[in-house]
């Protein structure tokens, strides 16, 4: 309930209604209570709203929060991330998660903020390509752990050249304040951060939505990271890095006028150091030159010379209305940091191990007029591509948003839809769902248009769908060349075997009837088959040459020759 409504209700008191007296008291209490509700309390009561539903999903989400935290910390300080994840089963739906990184470590002053204060890291309208918080953040994990087990989160952290410390952390939910206990200085040298927390009501599964698959995909999209994982059964998997350079850090950009709301204008104005609204608009927005400013001036009824800290709601509305009418140049796109074609190629080759692979990073473009974005697509076929379900191999779509794997809400996602709307038969993929195929889609933007609070699906922005479809068609065509070529080669081999297997039966029968030598019949028939297939071989050889030429000319495609173990085209192996 908002304060405005309460005021309205209290005004009823003047009517002399006795009942209303009680209502007013109750309302006042409610208001007080509401104020005391901290973010942490709110979180406690609304877990579902932030994607914390489903036992398997929650555990994967926890791993995601810790790993994202580690990756961000490493990248910002120029360290190649080494992350170690362990999950131990302590009882029924009761697990302990331990994540250790080689990052910069956190000072004692900041540990509480990082792991014990909700929404501490969120910055207002930071227009920068980032992994972002998809759910609850590390502090959310701390709170979830203490809510479900009553136990604190244990943290060990050390900075370069300083002594490492260990501590136990809890959160005071009504004040959203971290509480540190058992703070100790350790003797041993350790740089990095290790966090260990227990959770109840969660479940580990070795499935497409499990932590293992999450980490596998994380390394595919972050080839500079190395992650090892030990599952509750003690099985250890190491995903090695395939790239030793750190990705370039994304830069923050000014918002484009087409990508802001009324509320944004007011809050940005309050934080602005400019002396006039004109100066504020000029400084804080992308593509806001003198000409555009003139256009805004013509369209508003107040003086642009006024203090930006004092912009009224209706004035902000006028500005937004003006922004909508004016033709701005599209936003700058140089702030986007794709993974890169070569990098994706290398990591998919090392981790998925397909027979064929083709990658494409599209040029950046803009959606909804104001947000730059870019898509990266890879198609992997054969070999280790696709998802193994028992004996069968199914097609899989690996979705990413700014390098973060999206494992849930697949059906609602624009990236999935773009894959489904492609006519794959044109690329010799007859039965998409049952093909050994991995489709990799990375969506990069300064602002990801998620469909819900769970942040696992991307909204159907027209431009996003179109870009994905274009990239899928271009890579699909290349895959089609390879797949149809491979199918034909297989058919010829089958033909040879089919003729050969009948020869002994025929020769035996004919030899019994005619007394002719079985051996010489056999030799002659085999020669005959080879002679026939040689003609077809010649066709096949020409075919091969053509296909190889096509694919060799393309540096973004790799064909793995199973006979020679690995045959890479030009660029691929550099």
């Amino acid at each position, binding site marked *: 309930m908002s304060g405005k409504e309460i005021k309205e209700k209290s005004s009823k008191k003047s009517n002399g209604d006795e009942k209303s007296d009680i209502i007013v008291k109750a309302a006042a209490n409610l208001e007080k209570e509401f104020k005391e509700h901290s973010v942490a309390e709110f979180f406690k009561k609304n877990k579902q709203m932030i994607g914390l539903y489903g036992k398997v999903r929650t555990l994967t989400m926890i791993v995601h929060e810790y790993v994202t935290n580690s990756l961000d910390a490493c990248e910002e300080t120029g360290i190649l991330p080494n992350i170690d994840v362990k999950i131990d089963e302590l009882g029924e739906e009761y697990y302990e998660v331990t994540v250790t990184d080689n990052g910069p470590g956190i000072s004692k002053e900041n540990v509480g903020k990082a792991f014990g204060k909700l929404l501490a890291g969120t910055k207002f309208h930071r227009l920068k390509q980032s992994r972002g918080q998809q759910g609850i953040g590390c502090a959310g994990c701390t709170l979830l752990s203490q809510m479900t087990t009553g136990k604190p989160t244990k943290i060990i952290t050390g900075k370069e050249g300083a002594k490492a410390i260990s501590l136990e952390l809890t959160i005071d939910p009504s004040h959203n304040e971290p509480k540190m206990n058992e703070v100790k200085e350790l003797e041993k040298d350790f740089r990095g951060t290790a966090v260990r927390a227990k959770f109840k009501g969660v479940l580990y599964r070795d499935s497409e939505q499990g932590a293992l698959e999450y980490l596998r995909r994380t390394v595919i999209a972050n080839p500079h990271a190395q992650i090892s994982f030990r599952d509750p059964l003690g099985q250890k998997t190491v995903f090695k890095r395939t790239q030793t350079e750190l990705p370039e850090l994304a830069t923050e950009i000014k918002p484009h006028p087409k990508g802001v709301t009324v509320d944004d204008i007011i809050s940005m104005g309050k934080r602005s150091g400019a002396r006039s609204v004109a100066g504020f608009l000029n400084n804080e927005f992308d593509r806001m030159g003198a000409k555009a400013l003139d256009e805004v001036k013509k369209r508003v009824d107040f003086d642009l010379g006024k203090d930006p800290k004092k912009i009224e709601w209706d004035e902000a509305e006028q500005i937004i209305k003006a922004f909508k009418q004016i033709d701005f140049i599209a936003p700058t796109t140089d702030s986007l940091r794709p993974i890169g074609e070569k990098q994706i190629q290398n990591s998919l080759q090392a981790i998925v191990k397909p027979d064929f692979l083709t990658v494409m990073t599209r040029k950046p473009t803009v959606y909804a007029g104001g947000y730059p974005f870019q898509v990266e697509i890879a198609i992997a076929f054969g070999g280790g591509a696709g998802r193994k379900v028992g004996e069968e191999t199914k097609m899989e779509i690996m979705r990413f948003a700014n390098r973060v794997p999206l494992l849930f809400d697949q059906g609602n996602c624009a990236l999935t839809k773009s894959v489904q709307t492609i006519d794959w038969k044109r690329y010799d993929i007859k039965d998409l769902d049952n093909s050994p195929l991995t489709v990799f889609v990375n969506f990069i933007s300064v602002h990801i248009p998620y469909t819900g609070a769970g942040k696992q699906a991307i909204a159907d922005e027209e431009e996003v769908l179109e870009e994905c479809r274009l990239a899928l068609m271009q890579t699909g065509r290349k895959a089609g060349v390879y797949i149809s070529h491979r199918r034909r080669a297989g058919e010829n081999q089958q033909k040879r075997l089919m003729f050969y297997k009948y020869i002994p039966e*025929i020769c035996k*029968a004919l030899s019994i009837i*005619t007394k002719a030598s079985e051996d010489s019949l056999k030799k002659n028939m085999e020669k005959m088959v080879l002679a026939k297939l040689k003609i077809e071989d010649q066709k096949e050889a020409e075919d091969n040459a053509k296909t190889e030429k096509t694919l060799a000319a393309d540096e973004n495609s790799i064909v793995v020759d199973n006979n020679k173990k690995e045959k890479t085209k030009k660029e691929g192996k550099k």
Partner: protein
Amino acid sequence: MAEKEKKVKKHSKTTEQVSPKEIAERIKKTAESMVGQIGKQQDPEFTTMQRGKSNVVWDEKKGYLELGEKEVTRTFLNIAHARKFMQTTLIMQKAQDYLSHNKTASIREIYYELKHTIADTKENTFEGQDESDPIIVDLEHSVDTIREKLNLHANPKGTLYGDVTLLDRMHNNDKFNASKLGRGGWSIMSRVEPEEIELVDSNAEYLLVAETEAIFERLIEEGFPKKNKCLLIGTGGQAARGTRRLIHRVHKELDLPVYVFTDGDPYGWYIYSVIKQGSMALAAHSEFMSVPEAKYIGMTIDDIKEYDLQAVTEHMKEGDIKRAKEMMAYPWFQNKEWQDQLKKALDQKVRIEQQALANKRLDFVATHYLPEKIRNKQFLP
């Protein structure tokens, strides 16, 4: 891939005169021709007559179906033929073996004798009898003979009852009368060639062929064959080769008219047409199996009204309707009477079984229906 088609002249020698030795020789020649081709590294060939509707000719003058003159050639180096080619050589070898050792076997036995897993594969030489049966027919046509001359036979089906004396030359020259074998009669063998079964003599005046075993038994229980001086054959559905051959021989050799009694539906009528004019599958052998002079007694759609059987009709099923429509288009059904029957059946969508006559009385079929129809010569052509 369609097998190669071409027109050639048929063998002129009549099948009945060919000895087993000569058949064996023909198979050997075919095999030798294949060996010769392989020696020259040419694709070996096997030639046979094309079968099925597209190569069946209705000879109105002779009154039966004949095989046309289209041949097909099967070659080894053809993806679509290779397996069948292999199977053909196996059947050739086995048939030659039977002929030279004077053995006979059922077509099921030859299938089991030849079925085995092909080395280094999960594939069998024959996956089912439905694969070996057509190859046997291919071979029959290729060496211009009938199955019986390959010392092969199908499972026997069909029964003979009545005053006719037979002599089994293959079994101690047993001589017996088919009315003295008890109520079950004589089981018709699948091979009833004259050199094996001789028709010695008979006092019967006609041969009645009945579709169902139930009617066959009913008529014997009522003493029908004796009272009406007839022979009785029960086909048990579609007449088997041996049964058709025997009907043909009884008609030719004992000079008896043949009357056919089936259910009143497209299936029953087709049984009649196969006895009379031959089948599409065995069009090549019609000359020795069909009885163009055979007449049809019933059941007819008119019988329903005539004998007041409205209460015991059945609905035609979709398959019956489809079959009736096909039959209306066959050249050998192009006469007023049969077009009329088929049309009535399709209009009313009814069928009438032989046993529906029991609705009158159990013996009605023997005491009234058949005698009246035969006395009044109330037949369909």
